[in-house]
Every structure is written in structure tokens, then in C-alpha cells.
């Protein structure tokens, strides 16, 4: 039991904090939002130079060899600044899929390219009808000759518009929402038959609708065992939950700090509004929620290396619920305590609010995960 970061983690954290402090002010971020891609290639290179893109990638593949705690600390810092780059999509989701399911050739090709910043991935799993059911995959991969042909569509693929390669789930067997029969494929985003339509999510991060018609794949595109891709999808999603939980902690910290600052400086009826005890108590309740949420983000992180799948899933669901509820409470009250200004695009708190809102609706929302926990009560 040790809650302190290691020396390495502290150093990394410091350099990230410095970088973001100088490159990720609210105004700088706003101008990124206005660009066509919605994020910065230049900063992406910076991240590569700092070793961030290879953080959880083994040293053998040109990475830093870090673990979930390192990613947690980084995502928390990203959350404080609402970083827009496709780190979650490429390093966390795509990278986890490759690390778990890739064979030596695939890993050797992709992971170093991620680490050096020359390759971006997206995790093209969700479909329009699936909502949060991970096994609801209707995209098909039909064997043709030695390879496969993909038919179908993927929806709300995070940073799917800018990815170079896509990790695509498709049915090689089984009924529409059966757990068995799902396989993963590594697909070139520029392959014939892949059409992408990008857009922003409500928080300004990018996503895409991807249609796949007659996409021909060689046998080597198969990522992991055929028909047994769901457990990998689940672990990728768990990694995504842990990473975004940390991001929410960072966002909550930022909102809490902004709110305290506002309470102390905003004057009304001749005194700071923070003199109102009712608002003070609300701020204290936000702190309680933030600390409880922080504990749950840690739980998600430390569970990622748990081998027992049921226990891991349970801990991650608990964290999704805890962080989801904390995030909702803190962000709603941060806006409320700011009053009118908190409702405007020109003020940062609303941007944090929306990031937390979007994250809550990724990877299964609070109700969905609470439900999974309820199923297991005994």
C-alpha cells in the first residue's frame, strides 16, 4: 500500500505539467478546437519526444515500459487541461488491443510506430444499435479465399477520423449479439471500402462514423484469436474506463479549483459569494465527491492487472459508477455555483462539464454498470 508516485512518475508528471501549462491554456485550446482536425500534430510530436506515447508500451517496442499507474497520472494531467489529442484512442484503446492480441509481427510493426508518434489508431467497435452492449456486433467479416471481407458500420468511433489504422470488431460467427463469434482486425483506414465521416463530440473531441463495404483483408489482418475477440474488447474497454476515470479526476480538480476561486472573488451584495454558508457546504460536498471519485479511479487503475476477469470487471464497474456519479455531482454544481457565466462557451467550466458528460456516456454509463453490479449481488 503506497499512494505516493515514484521518483520517475514525479519527474514525468513535472514535465507534463510544464508542457501543458505552457501549451494548453484555455485560449490555446480554443484555437485548436477551431482547426479542422481539432487537435495539434505539433503537440503530438512533443508527446512522442517526452515518451508519453510509448508510456505503456514495452521497452522492447520502443516504449517506456510503464504501467496503469503511469497512464493514470498522465490522463489526470490531461484531464486538468482537457487535452484534445487522440491519446485515448491511439495509446490506450488501440495500444491495449495490440498489446493484448497482437502477434509478434503486428506488435513489432505497430507499437514502435505509436511510440514514435508516426501512427495513430482508433478502436472501431461500437455500432449504432449496440448502445452499451459490447457483444452486439453486426458488422460481418466473411472468409474469402485466404482472407476476409468486412461489411457493416461503426458508430461514434473516437478519433476515427484521423486514425491511420483501425481496430475493427466483426462477426466471424454467431448471432447478432452473441458473445462468441467476434473477431478483431487491424484495418488500414485508407483501404478501399472504408468510408469515414468525422465530427466533433459535444466536448470538442473528434469521432467518426465509419462504413465498411467490401473491405478486403488479408489473413494477417486478424488480430488475436478468431471468434474469441470479446474478452479482448472487454479488456480494451476496461483500460478505457480506467484512463477516462483518471481524466475525470483531473477535470474535477480543475472545476473545483475554478469554483473555489470564483466563490472567493465574485462579489455580490458587497461581499464574496463564498461567504454564503450554503455555497460553502456545497463546495465541501463537491470535495467529498471528488475524493471518493479519486479513490475509485485508483481502484480502476489497480484492477487492470487483476487476472480474474470477473473480479476485474466488477472493480472497473464500481469505478465507472463511482466516478460517473462524482463527476456528475461536481460538474453540475461547478456550473451552478458559477451562475450565468458557467453556462457560456467563453468560460472554461462548461468545457470541463462537457468532457465529463461525454466520458460518462462512453463504455457504459452509470446505470449500465450499476446494473451489472446489481446482477452479481448475492
Amino acid at each position, binding site marked *: 500500500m503506497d499512494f505516493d508516485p515514484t521518483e520517475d512518475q514525479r519527474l514525468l508528471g513535472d514535465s507534463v505539467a510544464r508542457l501543458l501549462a505552457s501549451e494548453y491554456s484555455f485560449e490555446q485550446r480554443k484555437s485548436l478546437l477551431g482547426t479542422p482536425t481539432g487537435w495539434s500534430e505539433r503537440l503530438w510530436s512533443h508527446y512522442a519526444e517526452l515518451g508519453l506515447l510509448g508510456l505503456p508500451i514495452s521497452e522492447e517496442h520502443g516504449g517506456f515500459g510503464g504501467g496503469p499507474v503511469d497512464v493514470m497520472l498522465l490522463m489526470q494531467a490531461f484531464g486538468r487541461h482537457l487535452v484534445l489529442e487522440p491519446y485515448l484512442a491511439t495509446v490506450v484503446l488501440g495500444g491495449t488491443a495490440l498489446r493484448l492480441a497482437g502477434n509478434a509481427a503486428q506488435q513489432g510493426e505497430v507499437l514502435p510506430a505509436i511510440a514514435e508518434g508516426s501512427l495513430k489508431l482508433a478502436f472501431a467497435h*461500437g455500432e*449504432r*444499435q449496440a*448502445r*452499451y*452492449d459490447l457483444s*452486439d456486433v453486426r458488422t460481418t467479416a466473411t472468409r474469402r479465399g485466404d482472407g476476409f471481407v468486412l461489411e457493416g458500420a461503426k*458508430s*461514434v468511433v473516437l478519433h476515427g477520423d484521423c486514425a491511420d489504422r483501425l481496430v475493427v470488431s466483426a462477426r466471424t460467427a454467431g448471432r447478432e*449479439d452473441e458473445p462468441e463469434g467476434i473477431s478483431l482486425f487491424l484495418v488500414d483506414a485508407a483501404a478501399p471500402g472504408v468510408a469515414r*465521416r468525422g*465530427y*466533433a*463530440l*459535444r466536448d470538442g473531441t473528434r*469521432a467518426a*462514423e465509419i462504413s465498411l463495404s467490401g473491405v478486403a483483408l488479408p489473413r494477417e489482418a486478424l488480430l488475436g484469436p478468431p471468434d474469441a475477440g470479446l474478452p479482448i474488447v472487454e479488456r480494451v474497454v476496461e483500460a478505457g474506463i480506467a484512463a477516462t476515470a483518471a481524466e475525470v479526476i483531473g477535470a474535477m480538480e480543475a472545476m473545483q479549483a475554478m469554483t473555489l476561486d470564483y466563490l472567493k472573488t465574485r*462579489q*455580490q*451584495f458587497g461581499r464574496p459569494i463564498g461567504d*454564503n454558508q*450554503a*455555497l460553502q457546504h456545497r463546495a465541501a460536498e463537491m470535495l467529498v465527491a471528488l475524493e471518493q471519485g479519486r479513490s475509485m479511479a485508483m481502484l480502476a487503475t489497480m484492477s487492470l492487472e487483476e487476472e480474474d476477469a470477473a473480479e476485474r470487471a466488477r472493480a472497473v464497474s464500481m469505478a465507472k459508477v463511482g466516478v460517473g456519479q462524482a463527476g456528475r455531482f461536481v460538474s*453540475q454544481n461547478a*456550473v*451552478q455555483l458559477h*451562475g*450565468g457565466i*458557467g*453556462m*457560456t*462557451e*467563453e468560460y472554461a467550466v*462548461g*468545457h470541463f*462539464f*462537457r468532457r465529463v*458528460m*461525454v466520458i460518462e*456516456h*462512453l463504455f457504459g*454509463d452509470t*446505470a*449500465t454498470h*450499476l*446494473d451489472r453490479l446489481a446482477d452479481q449481488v448475492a
Partner: protein
Amino acid sequence: MDLRFTPEESAFREEVRTFIRDNLPREIHERMRLGYPPRKQDTIAWQRILNAQGWAGYNWPKEHGGPGWSPIQRMIFLEENLSAPAPELLSFNITMLGPVLIQFGTEAQKKRFLPRAANLDDWWCQGFSEPGAGSDLASLRTAAKRDGDHYVVNGQKIWTSTAHNADWCFCLVRTDPTAKKRQEGISFLLIDLRTPGIEVRPIISIDGSHHLNEVFFTDVRVPVENLVGEENRGWSVAKYLLGNERTGIARLGKSKERVRFAKEVAREVRKEGRPLIEDRGFRARVAQLEVDMKALEITQLRVVSAYAKAGGNRPDPLSSVLKIKGTELLQASSELVMDVGGPQAMPVWQQELAALANEPAIGPDWAPQMAPNYLMLRAASIYGGTNEIQKNILNKAVLGL
């Protein structure tokens, strides 16, 4: 004591419901059902239809063109209109300016402005808030200096909802900067927004929409005939306006409509292979909202009924209960809708732009407005006196704390 609607009241509800069903343009209705806010032309079109029916000035006395309804009828009308869903009457025209002119206006002002306000020939907005003067209205600083037959206005207003659509603005301005009390020396002015020296700058809200504005006044000349009430006594006009009948403050019809919509979409959306509407957790959440809405419906009837009994001349402080619970339910119901949408509710689908570009729409048609509605309604507990201020009001006016 009889807690049921009278046959007359039920018949009235039926009459209103039928009229809306038969007269609300289908396109407007469909857009609103999907959660889109009414466009400027939608609000104007519908208010003119209601005005032709004699219902636009629903809370005005008969002699000024109102339908002469009881408070219960007014409540029924507002609820049916919201729950249709149909565009709301422009409150600046109907519940704010109208009653103020009727109470304080000159005959000339009434004649000139009331019919046009009812018919939305003039779109009004409200110039009260200023930077640094949110809830603390009396600290406003926009100055109006008398110069012959005119006031010369200089200053800035903020949070001016729909100013970019508006033709006119009713403003609070400081006409006597030397007044001892801060509430004194304030006047209530009607300002034509086409007057030179006025600049309207948009404030974009977190849902991406443009409702709010800053309005800058630089040497704006306003004829003295546009003063409402006495000079330097504008505070009492404003108090009258703010303290006006608050029927409909709960906006319960909107919450009902949102829950209905959530259930509708939940029939299409699936969870673990079955329609979401069959999910236990979803059902429990809906049931809880329906309980709370039912309670608020009756509470609202009680408040309105007491208001009517008391002669309707001052708002019941319990209307703060309506505001608190009403906004909580608006927020909870919009949250429910968004949660039903799930990941599909998160993209900025830009359906309309897509339509213009002749590209196929992306995303289900029910999805685009789910998050914006949720986001926009976070303001419901802020505007019109935050819910924290409503609790202060209850403490002072009801509990004596």
C-alpha cells in the same frame, strides 16, 4: 374541498389541446418533438396563430385583449402548450412588458405597444442584468441622462436573451446617480434597438446555441415618452414585473413532454437485447419522475388556486417551491432523455447542415438535441433567481428564518 377538476376545467383543457393539435404547423411540432428549440419564425408564426384566436395575451385583462381566463385556466393553457410541444409565447412580450404597460403605461404607450406585442410585431427583450449586477440588480450602472426630450443612454447589459432577434428592449437605467439608496434613481425605459449607438454581441452557451447577448449602449438617444412610470421610480416597476404572477414557473408541461419523449425513444433503443423501456432501472427512474411530477402538478394547482382566491394580486412565496422542484424536474427529465440516447447523444451531428449539403443525415433523428437540451437546462436553476436564492426567499417569506 374537492380535488378534482370541474367539468368546465376539463372541457377547457380539451378545447386548448384540440386547438393546438389542429393549428400547430406540423413542421414546427415535429422539430420541437425532437427537442429542437423553436426558430425565430416558429415563435412568431405560432404566437400569431394564438393571437388570432385571442389567446396570446393569455394573462391580460379582457379590456386589453386578453381572454379573461382564471388562473387555473391560464395554468392549463400554458401546460398544454408546453407539453404539446409548441413554441412558448414570448414571455418578454406577454408576461413581462404587457402587464407592466397595463399597470404603469400611458394610454399612448398601451395603444402603441400592446397590440404589437401580442401579435409579435415587435420582439421585446429585457435589459436588466449588467456585468457585476446579477442577482444584485440594484447595483446597476447603465446611465440615462436627460437631454431635452431625450435620455442619452450609456452602459452595458448582459445575459440579454434573444436581443439578437429583438426589435425593442425594456431596460432599467440609472437616471439619478446621486440617489441615496441604490434602489432609488432607477428608471424603466423602452428602447428601440434600431437606434444608433446600440451594439449587440452574441454570447454562445455551452450547448453551442446563441440565446444570450451583451448589449452595449453608446450615446443612445431615447425619447422621454418611452419612460414607463415615473422617472427614478423604475425600481417599483421592475419589482412589479419580477413579482408578477408566476403561473407556469414550474414549466411542468415541458418535463412531462421530455419524459414522454424518453419513453418513446426507449422503445426503439435496446439494452441487452430487449427494448430499454423494459429495463428495470429505466422504469424505476421514470416512475420516480412521474411521482415527483404528479406531486408538483398538485402543488402547482394549490398555489395557483390560492393565488386566485387571494384576488391574484401578489405572488405566493410558495411559488419558490414551484421554481425549485420545477427546475429540478426539468433537469432530471432532460438528463433522462440524454441517458437514453447514450453514446448516440454525444456527437454534434449537425443534422441540419448535413441536410443543406444534400448528404444523408448521420445518426438517428432523435439524437441531436438530447445533449444540447440537457446542457441548456442546467441554466434553469440559475436564471430567474438561482435555486439557492429561491431557498433564501422561502426562509425569509415563509419560514421566518
